[in-house]
């Protein structure tokens, strides 16, 4: 791999040990994937901050790096974590202490403690064609597909290494030729709710693996629908990018998405959407004791919708309901009265936190209802919950009655 004189000096340790360590990671990945050179990145986003992912081993690893004086050299945001820093949700004390130590170590490196999986809702919006080094599978797929920025599926440590060096290897989705579609999914199904997009993403993600799916027949989707589609694709599969013909910027038409590449066509009817939704259902007991929405973090308009759904209702005393978002959206929603409207029902609007990265199982819940394909996919493994999956309205009904119908 060709390195510039400055990059060679960084690799030799002239910019200090932390930069050398980070450069070692970036160069090793570049060598493995046959990158011809490194390229500058505009921003980085570090994920995997949950204590569940880092563990004590990972916590000590990142604290050592922070103590060695590592500082990021491009704007670097941090992903959602396992605690809400604004209120006491009765998490075990060890859990909260260690989780905050991880967050703090990254903040010491100069990262922004944004604690969100949707930094693009907070104003960190990569431009079309711009190379970035973001982790968080749902954010990788959103920035590539919807914004047209260029990003590989970075792991937490490679995103950090890119934040510290300002570089990433030139490979994968940074290269034009690797951004063409692979398979056409012709959608004839009715997509009425973001739960339908979760079903679609789960069905296709399982089958498409790490390839690039192209969708046709989806018109005027909301931004949130694309966020939830991408999150489901990236959970059940290893998808880093999709195209929606006539919607996403690199696919004005189906043919433009494939750019001459030969492709198979698969038709998606309501039956396939239902199959995807069924795969997300793992609960047997109709009694629900935990309802959680906001994975990825809820947007302002999703909170507004929820405030309307909960208007005049009370959550069952046997149910806890959490709605996850970040500090910026929560502040806006509070100013507009949505937070009060939601919390008057007994539900709680959390910040920083999400269910799968957090530890709500410590509070004894058994059965979750959610409208998030990503949360439904991970909660059995991460939290040990049985899961009911369906639209927000159905989740609200479950929260009010204590039963999934």
């Amino acid at each position, binding site marked *: 791999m060709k390195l510039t004189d400055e990059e060679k000096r960084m690799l030799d340790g002239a910019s200090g040990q932390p930069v050398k360590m980070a450069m070692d*990671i970036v160069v*090793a*990945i570049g060598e*493995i*994937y046959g990158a011809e050179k490194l390229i500058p990145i505009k921003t980085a986003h570090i*994920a*995997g*901050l*949950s204590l*569940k*992912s*880092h*563990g004590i*081993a*990972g916590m000590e*690893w990142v604290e050592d790096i922070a103590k060695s004086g590592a500082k990021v050299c491009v704007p670097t945001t941090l992903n959602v974590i396992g605690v809400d820093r604004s209120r006491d949700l009765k998490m075990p004390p060890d859990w909260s202490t260690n989780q905050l130590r991880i967050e703090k170590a990254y903040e010491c490196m100069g990262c922004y403690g944004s604690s969100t999986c949707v930094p693009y809702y907070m104003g960190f919006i990569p431009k079309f064609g711009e190379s970035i080094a973001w*982790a*968080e*599978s749902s954010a*990788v797929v959103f920035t590539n597909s919807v914004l047209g920025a260029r990003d*590989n*599926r*970075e*792991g*937490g*440590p*490679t*995103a950090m290494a890119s934040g510290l060096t300002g570089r990433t290897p030139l490979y994968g989705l940074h290269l034009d030729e690797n951004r063409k579609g692979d398979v056409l999914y012709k959608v004839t199904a009715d997509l009425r709710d973001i739960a339908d997009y979760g079903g679609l993403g789960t069905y296709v*993600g399982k089958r498409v*693996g*790490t390839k690039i799916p192209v969708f046709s027949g989806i018109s005027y989707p909301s931004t949130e629908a694309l966020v939830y589609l991408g999150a489901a694709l*990236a*959970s*059940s*599969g*290893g998808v880093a990018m999709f195209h929606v013909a006539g919607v996403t910027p690199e696919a004005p038409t189906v043919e433009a998405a494939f750019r001459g590449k030969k492709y198979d066509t698969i038709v998606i009817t309501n039956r396939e959407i239902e199959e995807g939704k069924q*795969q997300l259902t*793992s609960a047997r007991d109709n009694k629900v004791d935990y309802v959680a929405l906001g994975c990825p973090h809820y947007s302002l308009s999703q909170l507004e919708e929820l405030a309307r759904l909960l208007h005049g209702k009370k959550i069952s005393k046997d149910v806890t309901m959490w709605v996850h978002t970040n500090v910026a959206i929560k502040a806006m929603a509070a100013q507009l009265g949505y937070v009060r409207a939601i919390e008057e029902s007994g539900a709680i609007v959390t910040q920083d936190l999400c269910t*799968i990265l957090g530890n709500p199982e410590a509070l004894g819940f058994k059965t979750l209802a959610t409208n998030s394909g990503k949360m439904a*996919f*991970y909660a*059995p*493994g*991460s939290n040990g919950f049985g899961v009911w999956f369906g639209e927000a309205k159905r989740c609200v009904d479950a929260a009010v009655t204590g039963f999934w119908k």
Partner: protein
Amino acid sequence: MSIVIKGRPISKGYAEGEALVCHQPIGFNFGVDLTDGRILEHGHELLNKSIKDKILIFPHGKGSTGGSYVVYQLAKCKSGPKAMINLTTETIIAVGAIMGGIPVVDSLEQNPLEVIKTGDYVKVDAVNGTVEVESK
């Protein structure tokens, strides 16, 4: 009878042991129990089977990008595989394996999912990029 297949070293090192062949992608974050290496994903072909101390052969990673730290933790807790063989290793697994010292090889000259069977004895040389397979 044994055969030797050439591949690309991803995470350098050497290990040998019993093969566990999985035809589905594996998501490590939230997908593997750190204490005993059991796969936790609902509906996965390896659900409740352990990858601990195996030579784990699977197509590629998927899912959450926090997986690097989980691969590292599995190595530190000694609950992880002895080595991994992929069709194509993605960055998330590659960097976790390098941090944790788990040897990884990918891009073999023959499809490891077809050539290797669960229970075969496999020697992974992830310095020179060779995989030796002894059928059980």
